[in-house]
């Protein structure tokens, strides 16, 4: 008995050691990433952090909040989880009782506590039995798309089934052989009664008991030994990852270096991003092991839905394979960018964050994409289109590559001053590249200015010194160029002493709000939807002309999911008389990306269908005639997806500012 246990323990330990090795702990290289943004925490904040992480462990591991988002498999997993936990603890207690306490002469009383213990073992045993049966049914008969036909998982489920069944038989046999009556162990009692029907001889009963007992114990120890080598490893890694991962979806990407520091130190050979598994830090590699192939990430991934080569689950699996096979004897390649993950996979991601938001074990697939993109950029592997975007940003400070003439004309065309002409303003209107250079997006700015004028707000634009906020550069993975643009913009805005910035672009908004503060920005930024809501609430504007057609709202990832701005656009639309707002199935913080994020607006990837087309269909299914957007890039994506008008009038796509401006009625501009 002890021998078998010892062998299993050794096998388990070897597996665990290999995993620790594969995390890069104790090996050369290791973590190269640090988050410059993470400030040192005070003791008080430290305590808060501990509380937060504990709460997360309870919510995500013990209560399985995100797992339960999927009904069938969620409840299946929850029952298996709790059945497994309680039975394991119960078995451990019995083991300690039989092999440690009783030999030492310590006898536990068989009072009420013991009876409850017996009963809960039976309850959770039945729970586990039900969960395992449902899980086998799901894998063998239902076979959902996100579930991998993984034999190992099925084998484990069958082993668990055998364990529970044999456990009940053992209990029943014991009760029968001892001739006792244990009404609290109701399931065991029932089995005992069934055995009694067969009325086996005490000798054969005893023999069966011994065989079953030994196989039950050996298989149990075998399961423990198998943990590090099988999908069961997530029992250890997932809770650990929930505890150590940063855990929240952040609108700010990590900052791999500070350009200012690099320039001051003269050490330009900073390793940025990941091209080898060694470039991932131990937390990132632990997270690879924490993935339990749940597939929630894949369900919500717009790139996967569009039929691009990307599946966040597959990505994590591919990286894990490199992590697993690159340590120890006969190690495989540590390279990530020559075969392990394809370039098309990496560029297919829209960085919408839905995967990271959905992961029950707090793995961050989007984070790996960012690291891999930075790795590709460092190796100058960008391809023609992305090289073009970065060259445009580098030479023209806008992704379109247009000349600065457009920026100079902007103020006059919008009918508002530049800051050079008029500094005494309520806010700076950061028009952004889209509305400066794209005629369709320009209409958003025109509508916004109409609203600002109606409210009597004085605003100005920067003009010729305007430049891209840097979102596409950062999201393609050219961190240096992003920081150059960010510093330049922050310098420009502070030069004018501006402390309030308005933008109608979800990307400018997110970058200003979440990423610029790290580089010294001190101004406040408002998304136009939020400002319009405030103007309506304060009575500064009154959209009184009734809406003529039913609407549905597409939440931008960088307003809704990343910044929680889901109520204000709805409040704005509902303030319009007779507004009929229907929600799409995926809305608010769980909206489905338009396909433009992560700089995808600027290049094509191989795919079956446009993400924007999928979303447009979802919008059309609501019966709405107007699809309201809150970002020029979402708007452009949908208008492009509509294509040429057919027999039925196509859906209209309107920015929220356009909808409000129209509801304001006749031009009240002076």
């Amino acid at each position: 008995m002890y021998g078998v246990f010892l062998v299993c323990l050794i096998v388990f330990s070897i597996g665990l050691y290999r995993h620790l090795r594969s995390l890069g702990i104790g090996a050369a290289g290791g973590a190269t990433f640090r988050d410059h943004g993470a400030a040192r925490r005070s003791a008080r904040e430290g305590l808060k952090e501990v509380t937060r992480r504990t709460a997360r462990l309870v919510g995500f591991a013990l209560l399985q909040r995100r797992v339960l988002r999927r009904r069938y498999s969620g409840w299946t997993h929850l029952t298996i989880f709790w059945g497994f936990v309680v039975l394991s603890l119960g078995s451990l207690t019995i083991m300690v009782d039989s092999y440690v306490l009783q030999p030492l002469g310590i006898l536990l009383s068989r009072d009420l506590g013991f009876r409850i213990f017996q009963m809960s073992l039976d309850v959770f045993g039945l729970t586990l039995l039900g969960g395992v049966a449902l899980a086998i049914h799901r894998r063998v008969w239902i076979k959902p798309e996100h579930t991998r036909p993984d034999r190992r998982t099925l084998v484990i489920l069958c082993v668990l089934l055998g364990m529970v069944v044999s456990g009940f038989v053992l209990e029943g046999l014991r009760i029968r052989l001892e001739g006792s009556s244990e009404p609290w162990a109701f399931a065991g009692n029932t089995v005992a009664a069934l055995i009694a029907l067969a009325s086996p001889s005490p000798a054969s009963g005893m023999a069966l008991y011994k065989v079953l007992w030994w196989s039950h114990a050996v298989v149990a120890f075998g399961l423990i030994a198998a943990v590090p080598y099988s999908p069961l490893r997530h029992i250890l890694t997932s809770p650990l990852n929930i505890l150590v991962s940063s855990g929240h979806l952040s609108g700010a990407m990590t900052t791999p270096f500070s350009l200012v520091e690099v320039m001051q130190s003269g050490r330009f050979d900073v390793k940025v991003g990941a091209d080898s598994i060694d470039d991932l830090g131990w937390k990132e590699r632990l997270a690879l092991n924490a993935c339990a192939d749940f597939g929630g990430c894949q369900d919500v991934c717009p790139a996967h839905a569009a039929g691009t080569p990307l599946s966040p689950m597959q990505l994590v699996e591919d990286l894990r394979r490199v992590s697993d096979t690159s340590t120890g004897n006969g190690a495989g390649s540590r390279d990530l960018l020559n075969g392990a993950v394809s370039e098309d996979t990496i560029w297919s991601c829209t960085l919408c964050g839905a995967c990271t938001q959905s992961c029950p074990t707090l793995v961050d697939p989007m984070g790996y994409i960012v690291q891999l993109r930075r790795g590709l950029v460092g190796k100058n592997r960008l391809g023609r289109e992305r090289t073009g975007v970065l060259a445009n940003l580098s030479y023209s400070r806008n992704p379109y590559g247009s000349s600065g003439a457009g920026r100079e004309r902007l103020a006059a065309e919008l009918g508002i001053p530049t800051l050079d002409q008029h500094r005494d303003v309520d806010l700076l209107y950061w028009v952004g590249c889209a509305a400066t250079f794209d005629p369709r997006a320009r209409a958003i700015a025109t509508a916004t200015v109409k609203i600002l004028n109606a409210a009597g707000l004085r605003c100005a634009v920067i003009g010729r010194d305007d430049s891209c906020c840097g979102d596409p550069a950062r999201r393609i993975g050219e961190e240096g160029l992003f920081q150059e643009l960010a510093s330049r913009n922050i310098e420009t805005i502070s030069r004018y002493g501006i402390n309030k910035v308005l933008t109608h672009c979800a990307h400018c908004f997110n970058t200003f709000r979440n990423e610029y503060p790290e580089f010294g920005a001190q101004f406040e930024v408002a998304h136009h939807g939020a400002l319009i809501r405030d103007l309506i609430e304060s009575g500064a504007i009154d959209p009184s002309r009734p809406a003529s057609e039913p609407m549905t709202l597409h939440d931008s990832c960088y307003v809704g999911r990343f910044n929680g701005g889901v109520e204000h656009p709805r409040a704005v639309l509902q303030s319009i008389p007779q507004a009929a707002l229907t929600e799409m199935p995926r809305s608010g913080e769980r909206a489905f990306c338009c396909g433009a994020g992560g700089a995808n607006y600027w290049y094509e990837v191989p795919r079956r269908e446009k993400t924007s087309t999928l979303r447009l269909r979802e919008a059309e299914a609501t019966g709405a005639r107007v699809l309201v957007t809150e970002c020029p890039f979402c708007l452009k994506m949908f208008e492009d997806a509509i294509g040429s008008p057919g027999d039925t009038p196509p859906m209209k796509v309107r920015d929220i500012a356009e909808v409000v401006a129209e509801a304001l009625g006749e031009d009240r501009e002076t």
Partner: protein
Amino acid sequence: MSDGRPLTIAVCIKVSPNTAQLRADSRTGAPRLDDVPYRIGTFDENALEEATRLKEQHGGKVFAISLTAGAPPQELILRALAMGADEAYVIEDPTAEHADSLATARILSAGLKKLEGWDLILCGEGSLDAYNRQAGPRLAEALEIPVLTHATLVEARGESLVVHRALEDRTVIVEAALPLLLTVGQEINEPRFPTVLQIMGASRKPTVKWALSDLGFREGETAAAMSGVKTLEVYAPREERRRVSLPGDSVEEMAAELARTLFEQGLVKVE
């Protein structure tokens, strides 16, 4: 695979006004050069990329050489180094912007003679601003080496190169002995995009600055003085829009109105 040996390659680059950013003065039509950003010519970037590619394949060394008026934007020289050049040679002449192809070729050839040791010279097919497409062939003439223009594929083979030239209606494959000068266009490759960190890091690579006197030119022998062709004026044709708006209640009505207007004004004719 080709059996090339390590090559020493000189790449001629011209730093010129970024024509994509160039605006014409609304009154005179003359380009407003006062605030236009500069960049390396796009074809010169192709030349740099091809040189770097050959170096990565066969080993060797890449020099970038440039004739500039006064101090060029340092960032652009660093960019050339970040794209793969190992050393940069900058010939400074305040009158360089008045240089014609002849003067450019004479000055660059003096620099390349001083450099020595190169096997191959790569030039962009034409400059971004003037696009005369003469400097490359004239430079080969001055150096008395063969020249192949419109190279679209280059393979090193021992002491010679096999070069594909895509001409209007045919592709010609030729073999030419080194040393040799090639001019390339955008068909040959996709120039890499150097990151900001790589550009900054390139400041560690050497940049050598020469005045014309360092290359043996006498006083008064400036780019402007050596140029046979003087540019008198450059201006953009004036665009005027009529800004006609055609009213109508339906698409059909507006389309009919548009067609009628186009016919009336003689912009569309039925033959």
